[in-house]
């Protein structure tokens, strides 16, 4: 029963969804404040979610199973990642060898679900968005994984999340070293693309292809896709904090410091989003392959040298 509680209530679904909705509100509010607007109320994401649950669901002909399963698989994979990270953060001895690799795999599933869901919806704009999403996935996934090697090398080749965390608690945070700082910068660029936020929101460019892969979604599947996107807004910064900034500890005053770390990363991502124009897909590919990837490789070399 313990694992069920873990998955559904505390570090899992309900907790992540609540914080994800709050993060989404923070995103919209900060965007509005930067544009000199007032912005929506705190419960706005909840209203949107409940409203979408109450709307009619339209499913394109001949695509029932995949069309509905894509958002659900996206939601489930994000929930599993959150459960694993928080379990290790609270009890570092939990987890298993190789859970870092499982996490990296599960973090790509929301994008893949978007690709599959968009591809079966039989809409020209959706297929355009899907092809862009595939190219974007190819471009950011390479530097993301290379940069994630840096903590592994520094912690002596361990691929267990708990070991990475306890190493940081004993020997200082990874972000404090040169290689860690460079890898952290690479990962920040990659999570901007993973969240599909503005310099890299090419797959769902609202002004040219109308939300791309999501264009045919309505009602409950759209609500689930939106919810998994909001939860990603919580899980991805949390994963970065975990890997480079020593996670969040729940002892006394440390919790405030942890919340500050999260808000700093989220605020940075949102400020980049509201102050930049969208790039083309070829520019994004060039940026990630010829800009971020060499930087990540430099970080790996520095980590091997021990700087």
């Amino acid at each position, binding site marked *: 029963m313990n694992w069920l509680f873990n998955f559904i209530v505390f570090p899992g679904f309900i907790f992540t969804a609540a914080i994800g909705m709050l993060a989404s509100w923070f995103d919209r509010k900060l965007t509005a404040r930067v544009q000199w607007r007032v*912005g929506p109320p705190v419960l706005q994401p909840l209203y949107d979610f409940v409203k979408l649950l109450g709307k009619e669901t339209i499913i394109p002909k001949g695509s029932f199973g995949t069309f509905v399963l894509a958002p659900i698989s996206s939601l489930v994979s994000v929930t599993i990642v959150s459960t694993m990270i928080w379990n290790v953060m609270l009890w570092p001895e939990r987890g298993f060898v190789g859970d870092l690799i499982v996490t990296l795999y599960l973090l790509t599933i929301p994008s893949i679900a978007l690709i599959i869901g968009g591809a079966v919806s039989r809409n020209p704009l959706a297929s355009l968005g899907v092809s862009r999403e595939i190219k974007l996935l190819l471009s950011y996934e390479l530097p993301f994984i290379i940069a994630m090697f840096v903590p592994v090398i520094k912690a002596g080749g361990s691929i267990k999340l708990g070991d990475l965390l306890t190493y940081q608690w004993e020997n200082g945070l990874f972000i404090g070293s040169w290689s860690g700082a460079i890898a952290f910068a690479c990962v920040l660029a990659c999570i901007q693309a993973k969240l599909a936020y503005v310099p890299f929101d090419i797959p769902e460019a609202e002004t040219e292809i109308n939300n791309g892969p999501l264009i045919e979604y309505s*009602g409950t599947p759209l609500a689930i896709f939106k919810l998994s996107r909001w939860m990603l807004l919580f899980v991805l910064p949390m994963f970065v904090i975990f890997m480079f900034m020593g996670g969040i500890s729940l002892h006394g005053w440390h919790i405030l410091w942890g919340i500050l770390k999260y808000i700093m990363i989220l605020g940075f991502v949102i400020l980049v989003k509201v102050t930049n124009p969208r790039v083309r897909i070829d520019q994004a590919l060039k940026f990630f392959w010829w800009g971020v990837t060499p930087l990540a490789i430099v970080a790996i070399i520095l980590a091997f040298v021990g700087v």
Partner: protein
Amino acid sequence: MSVKLKALKRSIWLFHFNSGSCNNCDIEIVDCLTPRYDLERFGIKLVGSIRHADVMMVTGFVSRQAAPRLKLLYEQAPKPIFVVAVGTCACSGGIFAPSYNMAGPVDKIIPVDVYIPGCPPKPEAIIMGVVKLLSKLK
């Protein structure tokens, strides 16, 4: 009031359809989202796909080219969907009423919930129209 309706009232997503308008009403609709009026305070936002929409804002006298597309879009929308006719042309045809290529006004093609007259209606008038629509919902 049910939870569903309460949530719907606080989160209206607009879809904007131009059925042969002179673009003036369209500019005024986009005006409602600017910092001065900021409809996002009430959860109202503009969406690009009819599948996400709760309210369809139709501008313009409906030309014969646009009429079948307007009907198709209305049928593609997930229910409940509400239609707002923005501008004199959409309400009655305006100066285009006697013209040979007019198939509208809007309520001849699809059922309309709220009419907002004006050429173009001011953003205040559009907001008032949306408020009247919200108070009509039961």
